[in-house]
């Protein structure tokens, strides 16, 4: 199964070694600080970090009176570019049905699901430095420890990150942090809502975060070529789609206004992610 991936030679070999050894060294040095304690708590059963957050989450739901009062017509998002955003939404919609979806059909037919899961794990693991930087920038040292432990475990026992051993065997759940969240953590507002061509829903803050993260991606460190990055990004997109094939079509099927539905899901999801930081 892994043979299919040995052609990851698009990454020149030397920098890879250099990169991985630097990163693993960093991991080992910093792991001692916080991660040992974190992983032992996380390892108790499957109740990982997601489950630990439950208390505050439930309180938040009960305190959320948005539907109780009469302020229902109050607008809680800022979308002055809606007409343009809707054009891009349509563009992405066409892109989905004309390009992504057919591409996914071929991709899914060629690669079995467990291989696609592995590809997803690899892509995810490769981006670990971004998550490490952003957990550190948000002073979330326990999470930084978990990110490093996951990287160390999955890059070794997980065979270059193709398997998620850290979650399966050690119960260390993935942490998702990006620069958009870091900005939010430090109080930067989300700005206007954006529906970007190809990329999809975003807002001003997250778009800045997206570009920043793209520049801190290890990929750039190896091959500073737009086409390669774009190809890598496309692989990521198609692979994700192949693992969750119905999402977009369901959104369209169940929504009366898919543009509004997607905007709401995106903005509320991101707000929740950033709120978690206050714990």
């Amino acid at each position, binding site marked *: 199964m892994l043979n299919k991936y040995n052609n990851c030679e698009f990454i020149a070999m030397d920098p890879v070694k250099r990169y991985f050894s630097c990163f693993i060294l960093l991991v080992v040095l910093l792991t001692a600080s916080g991660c040992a304690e974190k992983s032992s708590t996380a390892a108790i059963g499957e109740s990982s970090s997601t489950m630990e957050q439950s208390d505050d989450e439930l309180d938040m739901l009960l305190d959320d009176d948005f539907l109780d009062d009469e302020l229902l017509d109050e607008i809680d998002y800022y979308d002055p570019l809606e007409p343009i955003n809707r054009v891009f939404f349509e563009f992405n919609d066409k892109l989905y049905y004309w390009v992504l979806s057919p591409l996914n059909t071929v991709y899914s037919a060629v690669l079995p699901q467990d291989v696609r899961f592995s590809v997803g794990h690899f892509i995810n693991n490769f981006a670990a430095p971004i998550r490490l930087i952003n957990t550190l920038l948000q002073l979330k040292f326990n999470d930084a420890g978990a990110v490093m432990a996951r990287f160390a475990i999955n890059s070794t026992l997980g065979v270059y990150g193709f398997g998620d051993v850290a979650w399966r065997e050690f119960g260390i759940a993935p942490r998702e942090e990006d620069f958009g969240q870091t900005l939010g953590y430090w109080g930067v507002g989300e700005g206007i809502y954006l529906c970007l061509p190809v990329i999809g829903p975003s807002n001003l803050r997250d778009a800045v975060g997206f570009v920043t993260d793209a520049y801190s991606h290890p990929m750039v460190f190896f091959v500073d070529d737009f086409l390669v990055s774009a190809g890598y990004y496309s692989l990521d997109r198609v692979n994700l789609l192949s693992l*969750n094939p119905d999402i977009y079509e369901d959104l369209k099927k169940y929504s009366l206004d898919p543009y509004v539905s997607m905007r709401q899901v995106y903005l509320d999801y991101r707000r*929740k992610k950033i709120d978690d930081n206050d714990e």
Partner: protein
Amino acid sequence: MKTSIRRSLLLLFLFSFLCAGGAVATAAGPTEVLRPTLQGMIDVIRDPGLAGTENKEERRRKIMEIASRGFDFTEMSKRVLGRTWQKISQEEREQFVRLFTKLLENAYVGKLEEYSGQEIIYKDERIKGKKAAVLTFVKHNGAAPLPVSYVMLKNGKGWQVYDLNIEGVSFLRNYRDQFKSILRKKKYAGLVKVLEEKNASFTGDGAAQ
């Protein structure tokens, strides 16, 4: 980040209809009400005697019957419409509740039928006055458990679900925003038309399932 958005999106749609349900025992707490409701719906779906396209009508009727006990469709409709609810007549309200309930049935029951293999873990419960939130984790296909919170309200019938929340995304708020946008452009009559068209769009492929 994208993965999770997609995941939560998917699951928002998968499980939204799951809030349908709840055998009503007056003194029972939120979790005691929620558990038999969800289980009852899953049991109907798993019942081999009710499987297949030919039993679809009967199956859906049973599911919605269980759903209507634990799921407060009127409260949902009221909250989802917001101020417009105050402006429309009693008949229009009843019509809206009917249309909205039908939408939820169309949209989510079909999806539930595909994902009947999941396991629900009841993790936590919080009561605050007349509101309650129940946190569950849904496990499916060995993936990391997905947190789904049910928000409930105590009314004359006991505890009933009126919203559910997956990773910060509220199902009710999602529809509320959509309706608001349609109401602004097309008024109430336009919204009814859009709802009717949407419901009609399910009769074709809905029967195929």
